[in-house]
């Protein structure tokens, strides 16, 4: 039996783990910090009791804000009513069928009744419950559960869960990249362990983290970033082991042209330290604090420079294996600039919330050459409710998930004269594959 505990260790929640809280369709990414209150769905509670439990466990939030593991499925389904009606012809929707008042329910809560018991009370005191069809009874109970159950499930973070979370909670932060579109990007770009992938995104780090997850800590990921520094808040939520960060590099796009031209200088400045010393020699003696700060600043700059140099070294060879772009920037210049870093016969995928910028990219690529299998597409996603005699579609998501342009690089040709059609080959009698 002792063996079991060891085997399960990687599946158990630990302090400082990054996890995702879930209730129904609502998700929230948090970190397990002892004695720290978290808020989720208008409730405050502590996560301390989750430590040591298996991921995927569901907990009750008891008054006081602590978690209690929920026993699986005992006392499930209150009020499996023996009786049910056949249809709603005699049911009046007058708001008077429930005999309990809000005060009564508050009293129950104070008395410490469990959510199951409260729901049972509601069922017993509803004059119309017995007359509902079995399906309507199920729906009623499901609705009450949603309202009165104080449960939370704790999940191990994954691309799937975080993509669902961001899409549900803060789609604006991820340029409205829907999770099925993200799934397409990762596969079309052939993201896999051991490759060298370039990422340009303004999706809070969701795309970057997803790429890193699919690479499993092997290979390298270079985040090209606009502005002063890379934004990666979302990557933290994935809870990657420390060594994954060794594979992550960053490179500011403001240096792309210099790098391509071969004029980017990442060597350390020759006399910087000497210069500083002579200037502040007199002050040093009196201000050890200032000296320490200067030294720290020097270390930071040197660290930054080293990172720049290592990223530049990875990019210089122009042999990257994949490129994924998803940002609020106009994709055309981003794509045309970064394609140069890819080896031939490698995939690239560009996401845009809007179709028109991708049409521009497509057109430019066709004129310029250097890419085949260009495809502009979007995906429609439909959820179904599947229950006996109650199966039907629930939700259709179309168009709102954004668009993808994908293709494969090929060895660059001399630029073709405009209007040349050879790229497509002789027109008729072409075999259709796929």
């Amino acid at each position, binding site marked *: 039996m002792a063996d079991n505990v060891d085997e399960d260790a990687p599946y158990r929640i630990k302090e400082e783990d990054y996890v995702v809280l879930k209730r129904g369709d609502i998700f929230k990414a948090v970190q397990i910090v002892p004695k720290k209150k978290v808020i989720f769905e208008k409730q405050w509670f502590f996560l301390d009791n989750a430590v040591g439990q*298996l991921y995927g466990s569901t907990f009750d939030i008891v008054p006081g804000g602590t978690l209690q593991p929920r026993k699986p499925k005992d006392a499930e389904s209150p009020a499996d009513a023996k009786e049910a009606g056949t249809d709603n012809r005699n049911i009046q929707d007058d708001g008077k069928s429930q005999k309990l008042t809000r005060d009564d329910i508050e009293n129950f809560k104070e008395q410490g009744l469990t959510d199951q018991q409260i729901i049972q009370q509601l069922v017993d005191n509803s004059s119309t419950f017995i007359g509902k069809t079995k399906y309507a009874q199920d729906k009623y109970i499901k609705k009450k559960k949603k309202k009165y159950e104080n449960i939370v499930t704790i999940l191990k973070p994954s691309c799937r869960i975080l993509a669902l979370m961001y899409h549900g909670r803060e789609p604006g932060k991820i340029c409205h990249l829907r999770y099925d579109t993200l799934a397409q990007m990762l596969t079309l770009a052939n993201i896999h362990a051991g490759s060298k992938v370039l990422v340009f995104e303004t999706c809070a780090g969701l795309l970057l983290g997803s790429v890193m997850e699919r690479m499993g800590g092997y290979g390298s990921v270079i985040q090209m970033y606009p502005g002063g520094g890379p934004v990666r808040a979302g990557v933290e939520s994935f809870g990657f082991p420390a060594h994954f960060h060794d594979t992550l590099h960053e490179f500011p796009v403001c240096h792309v042209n210099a790098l391509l031209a071969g004029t980017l200088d990442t060597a350390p400045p020759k006399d910087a330290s000497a210069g500083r010393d002579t200037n502040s020699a007199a002050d040093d003696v009196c201000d050890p604090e200032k000296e320490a700060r200067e030294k720290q600043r020097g270390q930071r700059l040197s660290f930054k420079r080293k990172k720049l140099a290592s990223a530049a070294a990875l990019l210089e060879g122009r042999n990257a294996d994949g490129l994924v772009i998803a940002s609020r920037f106009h994709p055309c210049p981003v794509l045309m600039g970064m394609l140069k870093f890819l080896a031939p016969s490698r995939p690239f995928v560009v996401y845009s919330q809007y179709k028109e910028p991708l049409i521009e990219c497509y057109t430019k690529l066709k004129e310029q050459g250097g890419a085949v299998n260009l495809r502009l597409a979007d995906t429609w996603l439909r959820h179904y409710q599947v229950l006996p005699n109650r199966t039907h579609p629930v939700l259709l998501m179309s168009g709102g998930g954004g668009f993808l342009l994908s293709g494969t690089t090929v060895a660059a040709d001399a630029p073709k004269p405009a209007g040349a059609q050879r790229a497509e*080959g002789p027109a008729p009698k*072409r*075999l259709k*594959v*796929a």
Partner: protein
Amino acid sequence: MSFVEYSDLIRDGDVAIVYLGHESMMHVKVKQGAQTQTRYGVIRHSSDLIGRRYGSKVTCSKGGWVYVLHPTPELWTVTLPHRTQILYTTDIATITMMLELKPGCVVCESGTGSGSLSHAILRSVAPTGHLHTVEFHQQRAEKAAEEFKEHGVDGLVTVRNQDVCKDGFGVSGVADAVFLDIPSPWEAVRHAKAAMKRQGGRVCSFSPCIEQVQRTCEALAEEGFEEISTLEVLLRVHDVRTVYLPLPDFGADLSAQTDDDAAAPTETKPQTPVALKTTTLPREMQGHTGIRL
């Protein structure tokens, strides 16, 4: 060459993808001394392929040319020889994310079919994961095993020729994810559960018919699976093209005349149509091949 790792140069024994034109590709087994016929002429492997860089343009005997691409599971899906109906990239991508596949995962799959999804799974779980794939048709099982070997991935996969509904996947308590694409998936659900790790995992089943989906959902619920969701994903491809919209002729624009032109009414010049870069959609959206749960 392997389907799970990139290489730069084409070598004898590789499987390469020849790009002939829009939506026209084929796979080629590279062999010293061999030749491949294309509509643009002959490709001579020894001189045109071996030693060249993947992504190169290759000129064929008749003067036409093609590109030679490094194989990927996505390119394989559209060029592989069909022995059964296959899964296409749109569904494969969704399945990969929903099953949370990543390096190191152990996956069970049935049926292997033509190996379209299998290659994608292998790519995602390499180099430390494993795929246990079950196919009840003997020749298909053998052909799949052969192809995995040719594609440099046989170390990552075990093919079993058995009936998953009767005999399961041949392993127990090891899988992070299980995938079913068989006629009666509800019969395999208990085997899926047995193959999965005790601490939990993900299951996905793919069926074309809603009745199959219903029965499978019931079976999953009975076996204690939670958070069962059912999805359908459809791909819509946009055709980029330039269309020309002619402008109407409303006659001479009298209000625009200046004093200089007072002598004679201006001739209306025929206006050239406006060129518009846009996309068009196919007349019918391609129907789904199945529903995933």
